[in-house]
């Protein structure tokens, strides 16, 4: 008797909970459900995951001009977590219609069939972008998996005032950079010319690109993995030698201690990307007007190469019910002059499109002493070369953090750490079932 009553009560509670849950669920203005049912009559509704600051303001301009395609921005945390979250959502079947995709993460989205091919919709937009950037969204195939948004050609940021104080010239080659590092450290053992960051694989990838590395390539149906190629090993051994010598510091970027070193004038250079001014002005506000920018030092005198650090694109989810509308918006956002102007002003983005880069005229406040900042950046950007990213960059990048954390702490062989990255990458791709060329 008691059992029955209890069972009845349990059933009653469950039904009550479920019915409230369901009614609560349908009360929510769920973007996708609404868009599907309202598609014929009302406007198309799109959701967009991004971490660009003030993107909601930029999208508001679009929404006002396009009552038939309404975009809702949902600001996410950026970086690797964002990619993992999107992949999980895509797997579960409810991804956003549009997503911000970092170039190095795009291949993993493609491998998971999470993003749509936009070849037909972006035929016009192609002309707006340089070859190098466009290659990052086609992955060297005939398909187009995203519209490029921003790019990060690398250059050398340096403390002009302190270079004068320590009597060093702006290094033109990495040999000169090493010499300058020794000079500075000899004059003041507390001061370093630069630091090797074991937490920023994207930075190391950019420096390797500059040296001519090709970590991944596709030959026929097979992937070729060469994280340990000659160029990368050269870059790693160079920094490893300087760290071992003690003339280059080993603290990672974007940490409180790094901020403090920048503020205190204990770090004189930062080989970084075009988005550097935003970071410097926020993390080292006291040094405004004291920094300047120059091309990266070269491996051989007379050469002129750079790499990319960061940069992202706008991709459309393969499961989006409104792919065409989403592609139209992505194209507008990254090629329309008005949108580009807003991206620069509100989003602090360095646009990937040639038209957008030309809109950058007034030097950032932090670099007010260098009025030709954007001209320099554009010239350097033209010399940057990238490489094809593979489908498991996250594994390679984690291996970088693990191996170089240890190598920096022990001052051990950096080339061995590169080999560790190669081994981890190959092992993971084998396990995931990719065909590898030997």
């Amino acid at each position, binding site marked *: 008797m008691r059992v029955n009553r209890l069972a009845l009560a349990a059933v009653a509670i469950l039904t009550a909970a479920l019915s409230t849950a369901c009614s609560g*669920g349908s009360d929510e203005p769920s973007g996708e459900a609404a868009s599907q049912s309202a598609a014929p009559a009302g406007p198309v509704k799109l959701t967009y995951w991004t971490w660009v600051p003030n993107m909601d303001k930029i999208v508001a301009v679009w929404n006002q001009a396009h009552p038939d395609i309404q975009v809702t921005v949902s600001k996410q945390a950026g*970086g690797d977590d964002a990619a993992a979250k999107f992949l999980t959502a895509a797997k*579960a079947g409810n991804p956003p219609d549009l997503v911000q995709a970092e170039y190095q993460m795009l291949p993993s989205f493609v491998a998971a069939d999470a993003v749509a091919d936009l070849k037909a919709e972006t035929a016009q937009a192609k002309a707006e972008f340089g070859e190098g950037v466009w290659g990052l969204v086609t992955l060297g195939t005939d398909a187009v998996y995203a519209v490029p948004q921003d790019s990060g050609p690398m250059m050398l940021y340096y403390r002009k005032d302190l270079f004068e104080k320590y009597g060093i010239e702006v290094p033109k080659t990495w040999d000169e950079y090493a010499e300058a590092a020794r000079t500075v450290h000899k004059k003041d053992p507390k001061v370093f010319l630069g630091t090797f960051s074991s937490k920023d694989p994207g930075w190391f990838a950019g420096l390797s690109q500059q040296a001519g590395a090709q970590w991944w390539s596709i030959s026929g149906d097979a992937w070729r993995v060469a994280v340990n190629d000659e160029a990368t090993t050269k870059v790693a051994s160079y920094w490893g030698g300087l760290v071992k010598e003690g003339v280059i510091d080993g603290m990672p970027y974007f940490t409180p201690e790094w901020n*403090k070193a920048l503020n205190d004038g204990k770090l004189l250079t930062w080989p970084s990307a075009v988005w550097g001014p935003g970071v410097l002005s926020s993390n080292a506000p006291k040094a405004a007007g004291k920094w300047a920018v120059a091309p990266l030092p070269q491996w051989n005198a007379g050469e002129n190469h750079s790499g990319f650090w960061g940069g992202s694109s706008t991709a459309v989810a393969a499961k989006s019910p409104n792919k065409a509308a989403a592609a139209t918006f992505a194209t507008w956002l990254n090629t329309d002059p008005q949108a580009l102007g807003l991206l620069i002003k509100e989003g602090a983005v360095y646009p990937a499109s040639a038209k957008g880069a030309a809109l950058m005229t007034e030097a950032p406040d932090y670099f007010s002493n260098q009025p030709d900042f954007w001209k320099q950046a554009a010239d350097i950007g033209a010399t940057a070369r990238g490489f094809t990213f593979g489908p498991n960059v996250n594994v390679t990048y984690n291996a970088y953090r693990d191996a170089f954390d240890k190598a920096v702490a022990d001052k051990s062989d950096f080339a061995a750490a590169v080999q560790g990255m190669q081994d981890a990458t190959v092992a993971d791709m084998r396990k995931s079932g990719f065909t590898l060329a030997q």
Partner: protein
Amino acid sequence: MAAALPGSRGPARPSPRRPLGLAPTGVLVLGAIYTLFPVSWVVVASTKSEGELFSTSTFAPGTGLLSNLADLFAYRDGVFWLWLLNTLLYAGGGAVLSTAVSTISGYTLAKYSFPGRGLIFNLLIGGILVPSVVLAIPQYLLFSKAGLAGTYWSVLLPQILHPYSIYLARIYSQAAVPGSLLEAGRLDGAGEWRLFQRVALPLLTPGMVTIFLFQFVAIWNNFLLPFIMLGDDQRFPLTVGLYTLLAAGAGQPSLYNLIITGTMLSLIPLIALFLTMQRYWRTDLSGGAVKS
């Protein structure tokens, strides 16, 4: 907590001063310093402006508290308040529902014998061993199938059923509600629901407060579940919202001073809650002393 509360009902009282008295005090003081040190850092750091944060000495108060607060409240048109309201909804609603479910289940498991009771209880004990972090992604896939991912319910529902709280409620019911009292009520003709409401519930209140506080704090601090479940930033709780300020993406500076100020503000409701809920615990201790 479960063992400590009923245990304190014992008649034997330690004499006020014993030679060993200093040692526990010392340990407690060390514990207090250990837990309060980071909190005090957050409070001091939230007074520093952007420029002072990484350049002045660690525990030197800064001058930027008001501008930090103004910046935080102005950030994306005051989205901080929305996140705070969301967190209150998740933590408050989740903790109330969880307490209700746990109390009634724990009471049932403790006071009624029915077939399968042992099995259910053992399953619950097993459930305690599974960390909720492990369940987040499977739960997300399930909620996606049900069409509930991204809704408020997707964060509330998984936190309502909490095996440890049910276990706690069972142990507490066993100790705090004497079977003879329920028998007496039955003889007087009270129905089971009335017995639970009128006899058991008042006795269970201190245990329920404990469960409520545990769950409130756990949900308030929960990061992974809402991070995975929610796509719409208008439904984020504070933990996930503040994280979007920290991981702003390559090339965008992390807004450290806003994050620290936001963290400092998000501590205040927790502290207030503990201060106000404290008296319920005290009621129990004194009540027990008088009765026995």
